Structures are given as structure tokens and as C-alpha cells.
């Protein structure tokens, strides 16, 4: 019973962290039709912002607050330098953002070295959850990720800015003919998506090995989540993250990491084979 509760908590923890990365991918892909291969490296930069800030000031929390701000600025810069020139050329955006991911990874190696960094756990206590001693910081991650996912949903479905962004997604030409500055919407969305990835990297830094390869470890499952859940949908991102995050944690509990990965990929392939448009399919 206790093992089940611990497993459920681990599943929820990974799913919610994955959801933050996946949401960023979905909003960028949904609006701009850009597959951002450097999204995992935005996650990476977020973690290294925490390493740098907590190293310099001793405050983890300051790093956690700064990471999304830094990544929003990085997002704006990347959009301005690269994406805006090529976003009509779908294949080229994949190539360009992949190149960018290599540059960022090597830049991190140059600045911080190739080895793993560690960030001390800012909440080193355990909390009793239904008889299970569970790390307080992991509960904090879950609460924060759930709150941010809700905030993203609120931004897109309950605000006038969100209505405009969804209008641009649904019919870019018509939204522009109603006066909406679609370029500004692109920029804002790219910055928000990047900030979400950076925040996820920052919040996960204390419970992961912070090294230059950590971005890929989140990029692949979050792409799988997008495909399994359904492209172009926030609810699809939630369902996909649940399936991929849940399967990864549950399989890893019984067998080796590598075997668990194989099973997760198989599961994703089976789902996509029978539901090519993802679990929520055409619905938006």
C-alpha cells in the first residue's frame, strides 16, 4: 500500500514536471507551426541559471525566480534572430533549432564544464503523506507545476490575450484582417513557451543531475507526450504527459531504466498507430 502511494506520488511528480515542458512545446507549435528542437536546451539553461545564481548568491529561490525571466528574454532573442526569418519554412525551423540546441549545449560546456553540477535541496525535509515519508521539495514541485499549468490554461481560455492567440492559431489571415498584430502574438507566445521550459529546468535542478545532456532527457518524452496527446491542444498536452510520465515512472519501478524506455516507446507507437491524431484527436 505504501509502495503504491509512493509510486503514485512519483508518477504525479514526473508527469507535472513533464507537463511544463510539453505546454511550452505545444503553444509554440500550435501558434507558429515551429517544432523547437532547442526546447530541451531552454530547460537546460533554466537549470544552469539556478546553478549560477545559487552559486553566486547562495539563494536557490532567487535562481528559481530569475530562470523564467532569463528564458523569456532568450526566447525573444531566438525568435528575433532565427525563427522570424524562417517560420514559413517548416523543415528549416527543425534544422535551425537543432543547430541552436548544439550551440547552447556546447556553450554550457564552455562556461560550466562537461561534468554534472549539483544544486542542494532547498527543502530538505520529508512530509507524511498517507503514511509515506515523501520529500517536501517534490510536493512543492507538484503544487507549483499544477498551479502553472492552470495559469497557462487560464491565460489561453479565459483572457482576452488568450482569445487573440487562439484566434491567430485558428485563422491567422483573418485575425490579422481584424487588426491583430500576429507578429507580436508570435513573439509573446514564443517567450511564454520558453519561460515555461526554463522554469521547469530550474525547478527540477535540485532533484536531477544538472549536466549538458539533461535537456534531451526531457525533450524526447515531451515530444512523445505531444504526439500521444494530440498536437495543437493544451488538454492533449496534459493527457500525453500523464500517459508518458505515468508509464515511465511505473515501468521504471519494476525494471531497469533502459527496458522501461523501450516499453514507453512501444506504448507510444501503439497509441499513435491506432490514434494517429493523438488521444484527443481532432478535438481542440
Amino acid at each position, binding site marked *: 500500500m505504501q509502495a503504491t502511494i509512493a509510486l503514485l506520488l512519483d508518477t504525479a511528480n514526473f508527469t507535472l514536471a513533464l507537463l511544463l515542458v510539453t505546454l511550452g512545446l505545444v503553444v509554440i507549435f500550435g501558434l507558429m507551426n515551429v517544432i523547437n528542437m532547442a526546447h530541451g536546451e531552454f530547460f537546460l539553461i533554466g537549470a544552469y541559471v539556478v546553478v549560477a545564481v545559487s552559486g553566486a548568491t547562495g539563494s536557490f529561490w532567487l535562481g528559481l525566480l530569475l530562470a523564467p525571466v532569463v528564458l523569456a528574454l532568450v526566447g525573444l532573442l531566438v525568435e528575433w534572430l532565427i525563427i522570424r526569418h524562417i517560420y514559413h519554412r517548416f523543415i528549416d525551423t527543425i534544422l535551425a533549432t537543432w543547430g541552436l540546441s548544439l550551440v547552447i549545449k556546447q556553450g554550457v560546456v564552455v562556461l560550466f564544464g562537461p561534468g554534472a553540477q549539483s544544486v542542494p535541496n532547498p527543502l530538505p525535509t520529508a512530509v507524511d503523506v498517507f503514511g509515506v515519508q515523501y520529500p517536501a521539495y517534490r510536493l512543492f514541485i507538484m503544487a507549483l507545476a499544477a498551479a502553472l499549468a492552470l495559469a497557462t490554461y487560464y491565460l489561453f481560455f479565459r483572457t*482576452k490575450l488568450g*482569445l*487573440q492567440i*487562439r*484566434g491567430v492559431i*485558428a*485563422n491567422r*489571415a*483573418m*485575425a*490579422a*484582417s*481584424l*487588426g*491583430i*498584430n*500576429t*507578429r507580436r502574438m508570435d513573439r509573446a507566445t514564443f517567450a511564454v513557451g520558453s519561460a515555461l521550459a526554463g522554469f521547469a529546468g530550474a525547478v527540477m535542478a535540485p532533484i536531477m543531475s544538472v549536466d549538458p545532456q539533461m535537456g534531451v532527457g526531457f525533450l524526447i518524452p515531451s515530444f512523445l507526450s505531444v504526439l500521444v496527446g494530440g498536437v495543437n491542444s493544451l488538454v492533449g498536452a496534459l493527457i500525453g504527459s500523464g500517459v508518458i510520465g505515468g508509464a515511465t515512472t511505473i515501468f521504471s519501478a519494476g525494471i531497469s531504466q533502459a527496458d522501461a524506455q523501450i516499453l514507453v516507446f512501444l506504448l507510444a507507437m501503439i497509441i499513435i498507430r491506432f490514434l494517429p491524431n493523438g488521444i484527443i484527436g481532432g478535438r*481542440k
Partner: protein
Amino acid sequence: MLQVENLVAGYPSGGRVLKGATFDVAKGEVVALLGRNGMGKTTLMRALAGQLATQGGSFRLDGRELGNCPSYVIANEGIGYVPQGREIFKDFTVEENLLMGVLGKPRLPNRLPPDIYDFFPVLGERRRQKAGTMSGGQQQQLAIMRCLVGQPKLLLLDEPSEGIQPSIVDEIGRTLQAIARSTGLTILVVEQNLDFVETLAGRALFMENGVIADRADRIGQLRERPELVHRYLSI
């Protein structure tokens, strides 16, 4: 108000559909643009809305050159566009569709005016309904109001009666005429339905092969000079 000079536009590949259209529309006028399919009417409308790049010539609204401006700039300068096929946001409610008409206009408040549903009451009854579930005529009324709520100086209407039952076509024609008379709204309308044109428009331009080939300076001439209709509209 609108001055179009030798406007050239067409496919992105460079193929020309509009081959040098020249005409003026004065403030408060309702002008019909008539011609057979494929003569360049919709291309002209899309170019004026900024959805197609112009390849030559120019057009000005109140003296300001707008050729090759992005469509969101053109919309904010006062050209409202109701495209063929309406292009409403099907997954949005009626109210959300109307809001889209003001949210992109920094000089307007970010909410709907209280009298918005006076012109087409059916939109008020269905304001919480998804726009895609309404009939074609109701969607057309929505597309027109979504444009008008943005307070354009010039309204571009492309085939508003297409695929709509006649009773609603009449209602749309009468409502637009009332709005144009009371507010001084200028309208350029592409239309195949001559009854609708006679209800609404004051004069007509005839398009052939991408240029303005002829004109009827009073709408009554459509009946007085049947050879015009025969020459430019019969198949």
C-alpha cells in the same frame, strides 16, 4: 476616400490576376463590383485587405498609401474586410467572434458596445453559442458585425449573399443600407445577386480580365442598359 491606381496583384508565383485596376470610391458611397467569375474581383478585395501582396500600382485611404502594408495595419487604418466564405472562428462563441473585432484595435475599448445586437437580433439570442453551429446566413451576419464593431471607414464585402437563403439576404441588405445611411459608412461590395446590389448600392463598376472595364454611375442603369449586364455578367 479610397483611391486605387493601376493596382496589380495575383498569385505569389507572380501570375497576374489583377492587371491594373483604377477607380475611386467617395466617402459614404456604396459601390458594387460586378463581373464574371475569375475576372479578379476577389483578388482585388484581398489585395485591398492586405492579404495579397501587390505587384504594382497603389491604393490610398484618406490619402495614406496602404499598398503592401501588413493586413493588421490596414485594418487599423480603417479598412474592414468580410471575406468570401465568411471565415468566422467556428470554435468560438458568437460573443468571442465579435470581441475579436475590437481586440486588435488599440484605439477602441476592449469590450463590446451595448447596442451591438440591435442590428441582427439573432446574434444576441445566440451569443453564447458556438459560431460554427449556426446557419450560413447567421454566420454571414456575424462576420459583418464582427467587422463593423471595429468601426471601419470602408467596408469590403465579398459575396455576402453566397449560399444564403433569400429572406436573410434581404434582411442583410436592408440592415446594411440602414447602417450606411445612418453612419455614413462607405462600402465596396462584390456580389452576383443583382436584387441585392439594387437594394444596397448607389453605383456599379464592372470588372473584366483584371481591369475596371466599365461603370454604371447610377444603379438604375443596370435595368436601363441591359447590354451592360449582358456584356459583363451573362455566361
